[in-house]
């Protein structure tokens, strides 16, 4: 009795299931306007926010489905994109990380010139992804870097960071803090991450190396040579950061720099960007919100200018159906231009916007606010380093050369020669 009841129940369930699948199929075939946008993007920290934004968007546009995959920046992302393209599973929206990616993937990227978003993008932000009059990407956001400092330390030492606009004044201040480091409760003035060569090869070098290219990464990418005339200034700054850093410099990595030393208030400042906010917040929320500021890296002739730029761009796959491309276009336009989207960009993604129409917004943290102010007022230095981050020169020539110098295995003249010769050689081969 019992068993047969159970059996009957089972049958009923099976029939119900079958019915459901059938109706599901029926529904599918009748709803022709359904479209799936698959996104493969390179900013892992945005993964969660992006997924929730997709859900918000879906509520209004129930015909759109999302598939979002986020892969860590730099070297990990590129092979995944390649694999997905060559295996026939190419995403609708993908990231481009600078001119090298543009050249490599422009076959698959739609021309965005003249679209609403392209017109709204801040001046200069599209230069990197423009080739032959065609625009291949939309900037995600802008970011900025400098010396992120501990406000309290500077107050106690009686130094006003905004006045440190020249290398000499800056050096003086560093020495002053160093002489008082015991009473200020510091281990050192800086935490200089010798392990993270990119902090110097990309961010620091940009200020000196990029001068002749006006901070334009595409110009740099296409240049057959680099003069690097301001190299002596870079040496002075690098030496200063190393001399007054926690030791040994070559053992300091990003985590040790930002988490262990800066967030724990053991150093006065670190050379980093507004992206470290969330890390500091995770360790000491109060400190992150009230205790940190960012000052510019003093460079001769560039006083008070913050290096602001972007290295992540959205591209739309031109091999997909028109409908899918349009859906992708609509989504990105909604995200960056609608009232709801703008709010999500600033407060959910924590992006400093790279588009016009955000003037009445307030950034959620002090570091981003500083980048936003600089970007609004135009007191910025362009990012030229995305012009070489995607080329072998960065990781194979520049970074090892700098690390060699920082470990004392090469002198500065050799380092500069290795860098400039290496660039010439690479560019000659291409």
């Amino acid at each position, binding site marked *: 009795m019992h068993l047969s009841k159970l059996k009957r129940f089972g049958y009923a369930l099976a029939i119900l299931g079958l019915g459901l699948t059938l109706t599901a199929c029926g529904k599918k075939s009748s709803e022709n306007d359904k479209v799936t946008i698959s996104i493969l993007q390179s900013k892992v920290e945005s993964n969660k926010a992006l997924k929730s934004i997709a859900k918000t968007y879906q509520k209004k546009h129930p015909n759109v489905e999302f598939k979002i995959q986020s892969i860590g920046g730099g070297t990990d992302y590129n092979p995944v994109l390649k694999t997905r393209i060559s295996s026939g599973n190419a995403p609708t929206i993908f990231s481009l990380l600078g001119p090298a990616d543009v050249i490599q993937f422009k076959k698959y990227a739609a021309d965005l010139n003249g679209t609403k978003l392209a017109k709204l993008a801040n001046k200069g932000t599209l230069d990197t992804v423009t080739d032959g009059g065609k625009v291949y990407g939309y900037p995600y956001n802008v970011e900025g870097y400098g010396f992120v400092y501990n406000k309290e330390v500077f107050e106690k030492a009686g130094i006003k960071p905004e006045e440190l606009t020249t290398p000499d004044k800056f050096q003086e201040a560093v020495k002053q803090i160093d002489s008082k480091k015991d009473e200020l409760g510091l281990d050192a003035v800086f935490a200089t991450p010798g392990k993270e060569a990119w902090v110097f090869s990309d961010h620091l070098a940009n200020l000196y190396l990029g001068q002749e290219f006006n901070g334009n990464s595409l110009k740099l990418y296409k240049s057959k040579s680099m003069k690097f005339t301001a190299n002596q200034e870079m040496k002075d700054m690098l030496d200063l950061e190393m001399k007054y850093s926690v030791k040994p410099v070559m053992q300091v990595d990003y985590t040790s720099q930002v988490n262990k030393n800066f967030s724990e208030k053991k150093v006065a400042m670190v050379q980093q960007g507004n992206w470290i906010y969330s890390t500091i917040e995770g360790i000491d929320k109060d400190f992150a919100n009230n205790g940190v500021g960012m000052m510019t890296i003093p460079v001769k002739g560039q006083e008070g200018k913050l290096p602001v730029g972007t290295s992540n761009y959205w591209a739309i796959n031109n091999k997909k159906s028109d409908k899918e491309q349009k859906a992708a276009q609509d989504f990105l336009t909604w995200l960056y231009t609608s009232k709801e989207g703008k709010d999500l960009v600033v407060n959910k993604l924590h992006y400093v916007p790279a588009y016009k129409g955000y003037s009445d917004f307030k950034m959620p943290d002090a570091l981003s606010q500083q980048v936003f102010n600089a970007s609004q007022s135009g007191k910025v230095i362009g990012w030229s380093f995305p012009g070489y981050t995607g080329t072998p020169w960065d990781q*194979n020539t520049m970074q090892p050369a700098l690390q060699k110098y920082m470990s004392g295995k090469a002198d500065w003249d050799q380092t500069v020669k290795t860098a400039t010769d290496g660039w010439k050689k690479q560019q000659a081969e291409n």
Partner: protein
Amino acid sequence: MKNKSTSFWLFLAPTLMALLLVVFIPALVGLFYSFTNWDGLSFTNFVGWNNYLSLMSDKDFISAFWFTVKFVVVTVILLNVIGLGLALLVTQKFKGNNFLKTVFFMPNLIGGLILGFIWQFIFTEVFPALANNLGLNFLNGWLTNQATGFWGLVIVTVWQMGGYIMIIYIAYLQNIPDEIIEAAKIDGASAWQRFVNITFPMIAPAFTVCMFLTLSNGFKIYDQNLSLTNGGPYKSTQMLALNIVNTAYTENDFARAEAKAIIFFIIVASIALIQVYYNKKKEVDL
């Protein structure tokens, strides 16, 4: 007989198919690509031996090669000495030898990547702390130059693989008949004589196996290298496998990476096979 050979091949077919699909065909495709200018997506022309010839002037590849050779020599010796030593230790009859066996084998159960990160913490956090408190200056600044990077890698590898090699030696040690040892004892052979003249020849097959494993493993190491030093500082601790991956993925030069991989394969295979051939000759049968 004919029947047997059909079923023989039939049973072998799944394995052969799998090998064919994931080893032989990709290897052949790779060989093909190494003669082109493939960039991971497409190739436009054939370049003949250019990829191979360019390796001769590739400083990074050559230095990675010598670094790896040094690493292999040191780890093969250390692993076999320590593995055999541990095996001899835990096959003695004393309380807790089974527990020790487990403990020594344990590191082998942890993945190389995680192990690399754990040891990175030890080298860069625990070592300096010890150095400051005990005044042992040589514990400072590990992984910041080639020498400490090298020994760091050696320590991690030996620590991880020592237990595995030990297990193999144990298996062979336990297979030595007690009678022979006893007979030798009665004849008045000392412990050392027993080891050199009986134990050692009896475990020669284990030696062949372990040499092969440690040799090929040493050449192929990648994950520990990636997580412990990532080749740094200034690429001075980059090993062959890491160099090949970087050529493909950061230099975007897939074709040249293929050429490197082919050379790498030929080197590892020939060294390993020569080694097996010579060691096999030495083995004794009862």
